[in-house]
C-alpha cells in the first residue's frame, strides 16, 4: 500500500502539466489569465468547448472534413503500415536470403536516426514525384518507419520455426502460411504497432507538406485557430484536451496487448 501511495505522489507530479491543461480547458476567460497560473478552477465552464464548436461553424471548410482527413490519413497509414511491416518482418524473421543480416541491422540502426536531418531531402524527393500537397505526403513516409518492423520481427523470432516448417511440409505456399498461420499469431503485436503509429500520425500537423486547406488535418487546423490572437487561449486548451483523448482511449483499451508484445520483443543477440 505504501508503494501505491508513493507512486501516486510521484504520479501526480508527473501528470501535473497534463492535469493543468485539462483544468485550463474548463476555465472561464476570467481565470485563464491569472499569473501565476492556478491549478484549480473556481468556476468550471464548458464555454471553451462550446466556443470551439462555434468557431467550427465559422470555418469555410467544415469541421467534419478536417476530422475526416485526420482519420483517413491516420487510418490508412496505420493499416498500411501494419500490413507492410508484418510482411517485411516475416521475411526478415523467417526467410533466408542474401543481405538479410544487413537489412536487419539497418532496421535497428534506422531507429537511431533523427528525422530532422532527412526532412529537407525528403521534401525535395517528394516534390519531384509530385506528392506535395496530397494525402500521400503524410501517409507514405509514415509507412516507411522501421520501429514497427523491428518490433514485429522480434515478436516473430519467438515463434518457433518448427511451426513454420510443419506448414511447409504440409505443402502450404508461403502466402498461405503467412495469412493463415502467422497473421493470427501476430495479433497482439499488431495492436502495439497500430497504437504507436496511430498516435504519432494523429499528432502530426503535416504543415510542411500540405498546403491546401481542405486537405489539412486536425492538429494543423486547431493550431491555426490559436495563432489568430489571444482571444483564443481557452479554446487552445480545449483543443489540447480533445487531441489527447483518442490516444488515451486507444492506449487504455490495448494496454494488455502492448504489454504482451513488449514482453516478447526484447532483443535476442
Amino acid at each position: 500500500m505504501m508503494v501505491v501511495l508513493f507512486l501516486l505522489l510521484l504520479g501526480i507530479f508527473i501528470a501535473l502539466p497534463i492535469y493543468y491543461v485539462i483544468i485550463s480547458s474548463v476555465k472561464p476567460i476570467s481565470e485563464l489569465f491569472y499569473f501565476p497560473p492556478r491549478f484549480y478552477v473556481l468556476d468550471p465552464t464548458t464555454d471553451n468547448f462550446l466556443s470551439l464548436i462555434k468557431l467550427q461553424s465559422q470555418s469555410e471548410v467544415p469541421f467534419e472534413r478536417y476530422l475526416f482527413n485526420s482519420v483517413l490519413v491516420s487510418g490508412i497509414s496505420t493499416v498500411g503500415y501494419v500490413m507492410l511491416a508484418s510482411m517485411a518482418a516475416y521475411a526478415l524473421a523467417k526467410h533466408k536470403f542474401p543481405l538479410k543480416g544487413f537489412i536487419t541491422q539497418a532496421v535497428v540502426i534506422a531507429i537511431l536516426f533523427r528525422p530532422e536531418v532527412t526532412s529537407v531531402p525528403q521534401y525535395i524527393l517528394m516534390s519531384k514525384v509530385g506528392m506535395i500537397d496530397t494525402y500521400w505526403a503524410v501517409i507514405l513516409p509514415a509507412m516507411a518507419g522501421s520501429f514497427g518492423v523491428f518490433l514485429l520481427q522480434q515478436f516473430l523470432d519467438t515463434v518457433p520455426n518448427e511451426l513454420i516448417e510443419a506448414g511447409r511440409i504440409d505443402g502450404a505456399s508461403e502466402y498461405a502460411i503467412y495469412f493463415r498461420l502467422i497473421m493470427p499469431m501476430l495479433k497482439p503485436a499488431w495492436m502495439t504497432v497500430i497504437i504507436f503509429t496511430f498516435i504519432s500520425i494523429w499528432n502530426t500537423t503535416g504543415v510542411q507538406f500540405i498546403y491546401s486547406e481542405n486537405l489539412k488535418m486536425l492538429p494543423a487546423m486547431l493550431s491555426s485557430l490559436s495563432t489568430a490572437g489571444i482571444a483564443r487561449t481557452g479554446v487552445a486548451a480545449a483543443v489540447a484536451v480533445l487531441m489527447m483523448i483518442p490516444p488515451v482511449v486507444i492506449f487504455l483499451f490495448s494496454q494488455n496487448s502492448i504489454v504482451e508484445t513488449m514482453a516478447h520483443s526484447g532483443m535476442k543477440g
Partner: protein
Amino acid sequence: MKTKIKGSKPRKKRSFLYKYGSTMFFLLPWLALFCFFVVIPILVAVFFSFTDFDMVRSPQFVGIRNYVSLFLDDETFIKSLSNTFFYALVTGPAGYLISFAVAWLINEIGSKFWRSVLTLVFYSPALAGNVYMMWNYIFSGDSYGLLNSWLTELGILSKPIQWLTDPAYNSMAVVIVILWMSMGVGFLSFVAGFKQLNKDLFEAGAIDGVRNRWQELWYITLPQMVPQLKIGAVLSISGAFAVGGVNAALTGNPSTDYSTHTVLLHMTDYGYSRYEMGYASAIAVVLFVLMLVFWKLIHGVLNRFSTD
C-alpha cells in the same frame, strides 16, 4: 528442407525469382518505402555534408571542409557536444533507471486496477504531446512565477531567479523536464518485462540462498529482462542524443551562451537559421556515428547479462 520429387532431375540452380519470389513479395513493399523515404534521404544528407549547400542555390562540392571546421574551428560544436554528453549521460541512465524503478514498483502492486491506472499516469507525458510547455510557467523568471514565488515565500529567495535564461540554472531546469518526459516506450517495455518473469526461477533462487531483494534483482530478474533492457537502451540512446526540442522550447534557441545547446540544436541552427545545410548535414552524420558507437557498446555490455 526441400524434398526432392522422385524422378525429377535435380536442378543445379533455382532461378533467383523462384527462390526468393515470396520473400520479395513480403519484403519489397516496405523496403521500397524505407529506401525512398529513409535510406535515400540519409544518403542525400551524407552527400550534402560534403558540399556547401545553402538551401537556395545548388550545392558545390567542398570535400571534407565541413568536418574539418566542425572539429577544429567550431567552439560551439564542442560545447554542444559536451552538453549533449552531459544530458545523455545524466538523463539517459537516470531516465532508464527511473523507468526501471517505477516499473518495478508498479509490478509490486497487487491490484490490477492500480497497476493499469499508474501505468497510464506515468506514460501520460508521452501521450500528451506538447504539454511540457507547462514547465515554462513553473520555471518562469517572473517573480510571480511558480517556482520563484514558492521559494520566495519560503524565504529562500529574495530576488527572482531567471531559471530558463540564466546559464547557471537552465541546465538543471532542462534536466528535470527531460527526466519528466523519460517514461516512454522503454518504460512500457519494462512493465511488460516484469510481467513475464518466470516464477520458478525465483523459487529456485530462494532455495539457492538468495538473501535479499537486491541480489534477487541482480541475479535473477535482470538477466531475464535483457531483451527489454536492450530495447529500452536503444530508445534511450536515440532519445538522449537527440535531445533538443525540449531545450529549445524552454530556454530558447539558442540558449544563453549556448548553455543548453545540443548537437541536434546545433544542426538545426545551421540548417534553418544560418542556411548552411551542408554543414548541418555534416553535424547530422557525426551525431549518427556517435549514437552508433554508443549503441554498439551498450549492446555488448548487455549481452554479457543474457541468460539466453
